[in-house]
């Protein structure tokens, strides 16, 4: 039983086990299964209804073009809103405080969040990709595209998850995640070229969209799934792979620098009184 390992390594190991356990609990909960099935059905349903629509200027069908964009959007959305809600809620319900009360507990807690939120993407992808590949042909132009997927997703995670964590750390209450998190992310999704090409928008909106990581994740996913000719539809007629890596890399780096500080500040301010106040507020809410 006596463990000679360092407390930090021990905490990271416990955090990984925590993330894995929470993932297991999530996929065996009917509530979460329902959520995954709903997003899966909505996405596949939309693509199915427009399965014969041709995309202007190409000989590609809409599902082929829209699927990678939607996947990109769901990834970004999931890892921003997921951690934002989780943190906001676990600040209020005392989960965070419990970890503050044990040695190196916060290291374990955040490790667990990182793993759990990343793993949560898997069922999300599965419920969309499996039926899509069964229903629509020619989704992946070239199998080497999977290699692109293999770097776009992790880099996209690193670029967007810190945003979610910072939102979750800063919001005053769970109910505010809608205003501070959901709303901006939805607006961003709207202008990031998911449902229509970004060139259809005003120039300044295009600039705003290209500052944020969501556009680049979707672009990266399109470059993975679509044939090279389809790049003609993009800004500058190119997949702009270098720019994708640079923009996502900058967001990831900024996240790695800023997030620990914000989280430490949040954790420092956690007290039992705060949890108690949130509990009372929620009782009022119910009544």
């Amino acid at each position, binding site marked *: 039983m006596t463990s000679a390992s360092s407390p930090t390594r021990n905490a990271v190991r416990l955090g990984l086990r925590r993330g894995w356990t929470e993932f297991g609990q999530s996929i065996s909960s009917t509530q979460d299964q329902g959520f995954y099935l709903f997003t899966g059905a909505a996405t596949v349903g939309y693509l199915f209804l427009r399965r014969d629509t041709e995309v202007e200027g190409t000989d590609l069908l809409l599902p082929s073009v829209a699927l990678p964009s939607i996947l990109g959007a769901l990834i970004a959305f999931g890892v921003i809103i997921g951690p934002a809600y989780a943190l906001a809620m676990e600040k209020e319900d005392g989960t965070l405080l*419990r970890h503050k009360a044990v*040695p190196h507990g916060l290291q374990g807690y955040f490790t667990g969040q990182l793993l759990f939120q990343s793993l949560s993407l898997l069922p999300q992808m599965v419920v969309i990709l499996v039926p899509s590949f069964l229903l629509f042909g020619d989704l992946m132009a070239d199998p080497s595209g999977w290699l692109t997927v293999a770097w776009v997703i992790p880099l996209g995670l690193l670029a967007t998850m810190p945003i979610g964590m910072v939102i979750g750390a800063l919001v005053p209450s769970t109910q505010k995640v809608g205003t501070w998190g959901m709303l901006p992310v939805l607006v961003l999704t709207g202008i990031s070229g998911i449902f229509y090409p970004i060139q259809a928008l005003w120039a300044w909106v295009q600039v705003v969209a290209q500052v944020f990581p969501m556009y680049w994740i979707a672009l990266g996913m399109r470059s993975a799934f679509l044939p090279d000719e389809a790049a003609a539809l993009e800004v500058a007629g190119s997949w702009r792979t270098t720019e994708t890596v640079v923009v996502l890399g900058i967001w990831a780096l900024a996240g790695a620098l800023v997030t620990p500080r914000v989280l430490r500040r949040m954790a420092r301010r956690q007290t039992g009184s705060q949890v108690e106040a949130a509990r009372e507020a929620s009782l009022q809410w119910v009544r």
Partner: protein
Amino acid sequence: MRQGLPFEDERAVLQLDRIDADAVRVVTDVIDGEDASTGYASWRCHLSREASGGCRRGILGCRGAVSGTCLGGVMEPVVRVRDLRMRYGDQDVLTGVDFDVAAGEVVCLLGPNGAGKTTTIEILEGFRIRSAGEVSVLGQDPGQADEDWRARTGVVLQSWRDHPRWTPRKLLHQLGGYFAPYSTPERRRPHDIDRLLETVGLTDLADRKIATLSGGQRRRLDVAVGIVGRPELLFLDEPTAGFDPQARRQFHGLVRALADTEGTTILLTTHDLDEAEKLADRVLVLAAGRIVADDTVDGLSRRLEGEAQVRWTAAGTRHSESVPDATAFVRALFAEHGDEVQDLEVRRASLEDAYLTLVQQHEAGHGEAAARLFAEVSQ
């Protein structure tokens, strides 16, 4: 508190509530023992190197049945608070709190709601930064304490809806795991989870989802989480709020057992005098941001009951005095002031009365005056 001999090398004066086979390994040689008025046995003895080593660090390494307080020598109290002040905005919540808690003691911070109990305990837990004053907990300032310090303390939090999908067993394994690197041969950390579940009476519910537990069951889980790392010092903030009488009694037994068998030093808050009486070796009454009384419950009531409260009005001003002999005092009062004395009232105080008055006054917004009166009558 009884003053002991100076601590010389491996010798200390201990206040032990039990001595048995395990204790003797730590206490190598009992020089003399005598009954103290507190109901404890007070022993002067030599300590083994192991125990005195613990003593030098400030805590007696309480093993097995030894739960004791080192009264003399270099042993520092586990908790030492001097002139602690807390101010939120322009409101003073704590206006100069002083107290000590010695190793192995169960001390209760008693006071009306809003007296500053939670603020005090959160400062000691290291969850809240004080405005001013000196605080030392297990030899460190909790505001800047490190993770090693954290491993020696336990906090019983009031859970609400966290970890709903976890089971008590899984959660205890998970949170207990953080203490494993701090395990020593004398103090194995964390607790054996099966035994811990049994101690808090959750064996049958160990594999149920936490969301399905009742309020009382959840609180027992909170206690289990608080002690899973076998803390030397345990904090409990209003631990039995919302308990039914049955659950409350079980809980009191659990806390006493912790203090007696593990030698855990315990600091808890409550607004319930009855609870303080059942649990605590010593009671600190907190009112209007400071400690107005510091004694055993017995000691407090003895002092209060020995005196009577005499109140009267003379020349338009209201007077109040607590005196040992009310009859003689009143006779002297009339002799001096005659007919000027009006609205005379003589009451023999009880601790319960005194505390209830304090609470009522506090709630009516006369906290400061009530605190002064309580401090006066319990002198």
